[in-house]
């Protein structure tokens, strides 16, 4: 094959976003269609499914195929792309009668709770009726077609990717509207009689013919970009424009005239004088049949452990040991390299693995799954081994059975890692890792259960606090099964499997607090009634109930302060790495004549911590004053709302640590090279580079994550406020101080992530 021709055929652009959207659309449609096909096979035929999927394929082909790559060089190619988006894909999509399959294909909670009120609203129905009125759809299609072919807008689309995508969205959207009354997908009702579609299509064809004719006969090149574009084939810009006009004129007209012929046949062969109301009556959907879905379809939570093979692998204790061993080996590498490797943080595994890679993976794990680090914690592996020597017989002191010790340790950890720049001191990092292992072995070797995890481990507390927002939770699948249980193996264990070391009794466990995802309870339950189920992130923290081992959130100020400290550290930690704050701290250090930066950083942490904790305290008081009748004490009122800071806090952590992960991955190559140099092993010294598009788009991803966290925090506090007051104004009054606080936090984080990042300790960068 000719190499040029081969290059043309190879010019596909598999951009992830459009492809993901199309696959998601196909998956939702298929899910809904398969349900409806079982109930209404005569209505939702296989042909409809094929038609819809073909429509999506045509859209995909138009935007990722060589048509898109050559659209800026040849107008005729661009015209073909537009015809696919306006004449081919929309009718195919509408022939798939997508309305009900998409509604049935979406998760039930989305259809019922999120979309339900909108779909039932008469105003929106009226708007829908207006939007699909043939007068409107015809006019908007014709106007959009004419407007986008005007040289000003067309050139704009050729010169800017964003405008080009907008142009395609307009073409597809208006074409879907245009073809709607022609196809009349079930269960919509026709507004005009069927015969009226003939003039409707003919008018649209008239516009198409006029535009196509104009392109074909106009003696100047309309668009300067095509006039200047290199001639890949021996075709002048004018000839290219004429060919584009012919494509628009002939195949375009056929797309209008073919349905006209079909409608003429339909009208002539069908019963005469069928009125729209009669057609509507005949095609009216029967909602009662559609609602009657099989009971299995109503299941709201999905169990990760029910996935064939994966479930068995996750459930197995051996899998956990393998993962823990992997992390143990990495910890050994960190210690070895930290103590004996070249002490340049960005080229040392004690700098890269814990401070850049692990932290990023940890928060992403919390966001997309749950407490995955505690599941794979290597310290528990060593501790279990150490218990052969130290069996752990003492009971943890009653005075320390709260989170206060953990709050202090966590705050110290956050402060010290920045103030003493542990991330830039490989030897200190290695010593910290060793100290952590020794503490875990000693504490759990002396005390019963998992006292270290429950009361001491700062990493564990961080994970507990942030897993409030995780979408997975270890919980019972069927509460009825637990009622008849008398052995309580999930808590007490049995001969072959220990129970929950953190004293969580599964039937009364709610939320992720204190759950290490060790899955001991899953293995211990003889009924197999414990799973890793999907939950709506953060919803649990909006409910007031008595939880096993924790009690009521409102009576746990220690937990609330822990969540607040984790969140405060999120802002402080990300702020100290952006240029303006770095410069300000350096100026402070200079003006005080200090040789080290720990004092300005300490001050900064104290200020941020004070502002966050003080703000929460004030928010609690202002919100409490809005109560009616007898007021709850501040001490009991405030903690409940404080948990709502967790989502925005996690968003800041993910945006911050995700950045470190992105920067850290390319450093693995140079670090390996440095290790090779140190040890004399020829490992190679190549650099790993990430695709630039990933890095370039990350600031937007950071801001979107922040948006999601902010909205979830607002929603959480709203739900708690809803519970606190029945009257609308009062409820708003209770919510407003919290909404104000989250908005301030969001604004601060938004500013932080718009600043240039300064990661100290990397080569060529001075503090």
């Amino acid at each position: 094959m000719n190499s040029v021709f081969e290059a043309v055929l190879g010019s596909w652009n598999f951009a992830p976003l459009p492809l993901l959207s199309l696959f998601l659309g196909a998956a939702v449609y298929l899910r809904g269609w398969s349900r409806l096909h079982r109930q209404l096979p005569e209505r939702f035929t296989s042909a409809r499914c094929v038609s819809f999927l073909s429509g999506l394929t045509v859209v995909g082909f138009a935007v990722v195929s060589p048509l898109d790559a050559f659209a800026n060089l040849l107008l005729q190619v661009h015209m073909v792309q537009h015809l696919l988006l306006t004449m081919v894909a929309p009718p195919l999509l509408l022939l798939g009668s997508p309305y009900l399959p998409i509604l049935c294909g979406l998760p039930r909670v989305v259809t019922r709770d999120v979309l339900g009120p909108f779909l039932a609203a008469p105003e929106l129905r009226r708007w829908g009726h207006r939007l699909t009125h043939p007068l409107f759809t015809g006019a908007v299609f014709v106007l959009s077609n004419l407007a986008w072919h005007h040289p000003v807008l067309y050139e704009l689309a050729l010169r800017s990717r964003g405008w080009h995508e907008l142009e395609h969205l307009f073409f597809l959207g208006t074409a879907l509207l245009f073809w709607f009354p022609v196809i009349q997908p079930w269960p919509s009702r026709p507004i005009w009689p069927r015969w009226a579609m003939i003039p409707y299509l003919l008018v649209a064809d008239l516009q198409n013919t006029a535009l196509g004719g104009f392109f074909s006969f106009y003696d100047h090149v309309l668009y300067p970009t095509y006039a200047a574009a290199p001639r890949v084939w021996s075709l002048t810009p004018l000839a290219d424009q004429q060919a584009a006009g012919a494509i628009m004129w002939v195949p375009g007209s056929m797309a209008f005239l073919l349905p006209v012929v079909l409608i003429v046949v339909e009208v002539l062969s069908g019963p005469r004088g069928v009125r729209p109301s009669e057609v509507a009556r005949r095609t009216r959907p029967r909602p009662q049949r559609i609602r009657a879905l099989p009971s299995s379809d109503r299941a709201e939570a999905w169990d990760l452990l029910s996935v064939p093979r994966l479930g068995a692998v996750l459930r197995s204790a051996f899998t956990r040991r393998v993962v823990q061993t992997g992390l143990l080996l990495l910890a050994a590498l960190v210690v070895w390299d930290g103590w004996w490797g070249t002490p340049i943080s960005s080229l040392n595994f004690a700098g890269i693995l814990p401070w850049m890679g692990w932290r990023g993976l940890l928060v992403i794990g919390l966001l997309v799954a749950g407490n995955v680090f505690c599941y794979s914690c290597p310290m528990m592996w060593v501790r279990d081994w150490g218990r052969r020597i130290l069996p752990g017989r003492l009971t943890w002191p009653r005075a320390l059975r709260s989170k206060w010790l953990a709050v202090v340790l966590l705050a110290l950890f956050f402060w010290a890692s920045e103030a003493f720049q542990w991330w830039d001191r490989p030897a200190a990092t290695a010593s910290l890792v060793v100290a952590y292992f020794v503490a875990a072995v000693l504490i759990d070797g002396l005390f019963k259960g998992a006292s270290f995890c429950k009361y001491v481990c700062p990493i564990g507390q961080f994970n507990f606090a942030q897993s409030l927002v995780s979408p997975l939770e270890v919980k019972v699948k069927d509460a009825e099964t637990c009622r008849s249980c008398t052995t309580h193996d999930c808590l007490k264990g049995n001969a072959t499997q220990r129970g929950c070391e953190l004293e969580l009794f599964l039937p009364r466990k709610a939320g992720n607090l204190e759950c290490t995802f060790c899955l001991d309870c899953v293995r211990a339950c003889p009924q197999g009634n414990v799973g890793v189920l999907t939950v709506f992130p953060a919803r649990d923290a909006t409910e007031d109930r008595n939880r096993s081992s924790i009690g009521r959130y409102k009576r746990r100020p220690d937990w609330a302060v822990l969540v607040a400290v984790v969140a405060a550290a999120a802002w402080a930690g990300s702020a100290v790495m952006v240029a303006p704050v770095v410069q300000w701290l350096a100026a402070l250090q200079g003006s005080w004549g200090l040789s080290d930066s720990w004092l300005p950083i300490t001050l900064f942490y104290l200020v941020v911590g004070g502002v966050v904790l003080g703000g929460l305290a004030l928010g609690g008081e202002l919100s409490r004053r809005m109560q009616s009748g007898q007021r709850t004490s501040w001490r009991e009122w405030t903690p409940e709302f404080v948990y709502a800071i967790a989502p925005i806090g996690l968003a800041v952590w993910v945006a911050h640590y995700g950045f470190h992960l992105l920067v850290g991955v390319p450093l693995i190559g140079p670090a390996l090279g440095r290790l090779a140099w140190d040890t004399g092993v020829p490992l190679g010294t190549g650099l790993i580079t990430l695709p630039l598009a990933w890095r370039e788009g990350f600031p937007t991803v950071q801001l979107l994550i922040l948006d999601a966290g902010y909205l979830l925090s607002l929603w959480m506090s709203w739900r708690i406020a809803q519970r606190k007051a029945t009257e609308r104004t009062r409820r708003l009054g209770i919510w407003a101080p919290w909404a104000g606080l989250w908005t301030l936090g969001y604004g601060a984080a938004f500013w932080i992530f718009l600043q240039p990042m300064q990661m100290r300790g990397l080569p060529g960068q001075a503090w």
Partner: protein
Amino acid sequence: MLQEVQSPLRVTVMMDPAEARLGWIDLSVLVQSAEGTEVWLDAETEFLLHPPKGAVLPALDPFCGPNGEALSQARSGVNSPTRKYVATRAAATNRLLRAARIHLPVAGEWLLEVRVRRADARAQFQAPLSVLEPPLARTSVVGCLALPPLAIGLFMTHQGLRRRLMSSS
């Protein structure tokens, strides 16, 4: 778009976006025979970007770096302000072209130098490249800022509709 004919090569350089601003741009090149009748896919192309006079380039990339380039320079001891990029077919969506993703860290008048080589044929030319400051409000930032109010508006409408639905039923 920039076109240069240095027999036997015809070189066309295209830029996306059409107006260079601080940050990232795509530079693509199409190499043809001087008459424009043939496309030569095997022509090797390099872009050299000379920064504006007196400009201080950050050592690191906008993500704080160090990018591969900065590290290579640190390791080799070379620290030239000129940035060199090799255009490849893999980086181009249109496989008739070669492309490179280029980072422009400072605004001002840059000088773009294009070097093309195919067998014995060579073409080399320079062109000024004006790099503007980024717009005050980037679309992505405005979009991200607009998202929460939009979501809150939808949520409030949702709650209102839900309340009405519940009271009517």
